[in-house]
């Protein structure tokens, strides 16, 4: 187990190094930051001075080394746009994105799994057929369209829910949460539905397909032939086998949720990291873009490593066998 953990951590570190290199390359290719930082009438001396101060005249390798070393400590330099440390900006925005993704992921799981089980157990019922059709819509309609439709219906026409922002937030020692105020909770509803919809339909269809497959398996037939009650057959014997592959996909999708949050945050003007990133792109604010890239990759890698570890906990076939006496 320890060797496995070590191997995964080394792999994760390598992935992060590659990502950091790509992030660094953005600095080289996305134009000259000096022209963004100084007023248009700055003198040549002022420009050269700043260039020297920022270390842009150093050799490539030195700059690269400095970037990696700083990034490893969470220091991504100053934002070109508002002259504040990038890490502060991200730390400010992170809670908004994290809460949005958390609610969306919970929603997707809490609805997707039961609906998937239901449609697998009653494949011919008209509710199942209807859900299948609706889920196809959920998968194929772009999320920004559903987001705008949600705003149109619930904010503009009915006027029940806010169409933008986080509502009231409470500061808990640097972590701003929207969970503790009514307006914060109301503001979470539409964005999390928009973000969750695709994932939920995906999970539902995945659970359904996996479960139908598992219900055809020999070990389910044998359990049925032993007279096991349906409840036990479906929710014990079949479900655990169903959820193992679902877990992998969900782990991958969780990273996707964080990345997809960009679109949701843009539609709802949600003050999270994705919104920050879009603003950074508009201003060619490379340090913020680079930091966002590295942070999202980092979350991806962490989540996938955790899923891999969970896999070993859930699936006995992957567990390290200490001493298996094999024999006929």
């Amino acid at each position, binding site marked *: 187990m320890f060797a496995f953990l070590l191997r995964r951590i080394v792999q994760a570190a390598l992935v992060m190094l590659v990502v950091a290199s790509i992030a660094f390359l953005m600095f080289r290719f996305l134009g000259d930051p000096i022209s963004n930082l100084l007023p248009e009438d700055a003198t040549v001396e002022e420009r050269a001075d700043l260039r020297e101060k920022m270390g842009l005249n150093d050799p490539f390798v030195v700059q690269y080394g400095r970037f990696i070393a700083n990034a490893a400590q969470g220091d991504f330099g100053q934002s070109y746009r508002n002259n504040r440390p990038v890490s502060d900006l991200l730390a400010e925005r992170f809670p908004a994105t994290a809460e949005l993704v958390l609610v969306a992921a919970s929603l997707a799981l809490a609805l997707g799994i039961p609906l998937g089980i239901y449609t697998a157990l009653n494949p011919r019922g008209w509710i199942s057929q209807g859900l299948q059709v609706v889920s196809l819509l959920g998968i194929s309609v772009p999320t920004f369209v559903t987001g705008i439709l949600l705003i149109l219906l619930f904010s503009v026409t009915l006027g029940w829910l806010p169409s933008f922002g986080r509502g009231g937030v409470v500061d808990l020692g640097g972590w701003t949460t929207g969970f503790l105020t009514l307006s914060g909770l109301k503001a979470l509803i539409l964005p999390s539905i928009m973000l969750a919809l695709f994932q939920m339909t995906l999970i539902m269809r995945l659970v359904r397909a996996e479960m139908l497959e598992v219900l055809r*398996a*020999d*070990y389910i037939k044998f359990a049925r*032939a032993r*007279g096991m009650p349906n409840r036990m057959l479906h929710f014990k014997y079949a479900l655990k086998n169903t959820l*193992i592959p679902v877990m992998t996909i969900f782990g991958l999708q969780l990273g996707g949720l964080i990345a997809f949050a960009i679109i949701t945050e843009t539609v709802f003007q949600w003050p999270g990291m994705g919104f920050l990133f879009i603003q950074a792109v508009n201003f060619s604010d490379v340090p913020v873009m680079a930091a966002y890239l590295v942070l999202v990759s980092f979350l991806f890698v962490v989540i996938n490593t955790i899923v891999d570890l969970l896999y070993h906990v859930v*699936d006995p076939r992957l567990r390290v066998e200490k001493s298996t006496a094999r024999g*006929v």
Partner: protein
Amino acid sequence: MTLLELDNIVVEFPTRRGPLEAVKGLSLELDEGQILGLVGESGAGKSITGAAITGLIEPPGLIRSGQVRLRGQRIDNLAPEKMRRIRGKEIGAIFQDPLTSLNPVYTVGEQLIDTMRVHLGLDHKAARKRAIDWLAEVGIPAPEARLDQYPHQFSGGMRQRVVIALALCAEPKLIIADEPTTALDVSVQAQILALLKRLCRENGTAVVLVTHDMGVIAETADRVAVMYAGRLVEIGDVAQVIQDPLHPYTKGLMNSIPQIGNRDARLTQIEGAMPGLRNPAPGCAFAPRCPQAMDTCRTLRPIPVDAGSGQVACHLFGEAQ
């Protein structure tokens, strides 16, 4: 004492082009503690017959007519929940592939304990104790340690032993064993069959042993029923059917078993193939392949008549000629 009776059962699969009859009116009886071999080539309807007894024919297949009786009580028309209680408790089943018959994410102990708790109403502790006894009973060394292991930690032969323990643990009076050794190593096959036979003899459990392997039948069964194209062609005591088969099809089957020490003789086979289920011919289904076919065989279906130690359905026997 008669344990199981099949009374003229017809198993049908509705298809777009009309129903297909996989079993076309099959009757047989099985005494308590008896081992009946059910043989025939692929598609003869043997496995479907087994599924009909346990009530596990895959939908949309169904028993169109006839009765299945267990100790004189009809079980083919029971409500699903009542039939579930019979499954495992009264009628056990063993399937072909031990590698896939066990749930990979639960320990063998948990699967045994669940089964016994469902049928015998034991508490967890008592069920666990009996599970250990069962593993020992089916010849698994160090049963206490093995109980908490997962199926993938067992070899194929060991897994089939676990499957047998699972099928027998609620002490059913009848076991439907559908090709229980086909997926196993030849060397392991004999052990598993001997184990199954010993346990059934000890507990007075009757067995319907579905197989296409005459060797398995000869070793294990008391009586043999030979199926062809969904019908019974011959049934009798194992010694008589194997030594002195009556029906031309049974003769053909026996002749197509390779003989040891007979190296250069060409292996005989039955020419042709079993007719499809669609558009059955009016006469005997075996007539097109039968070396002794007569005119009546092509027009008139033979009905089973008493012959030898059982019955045979062939115009060569009985008063039809």
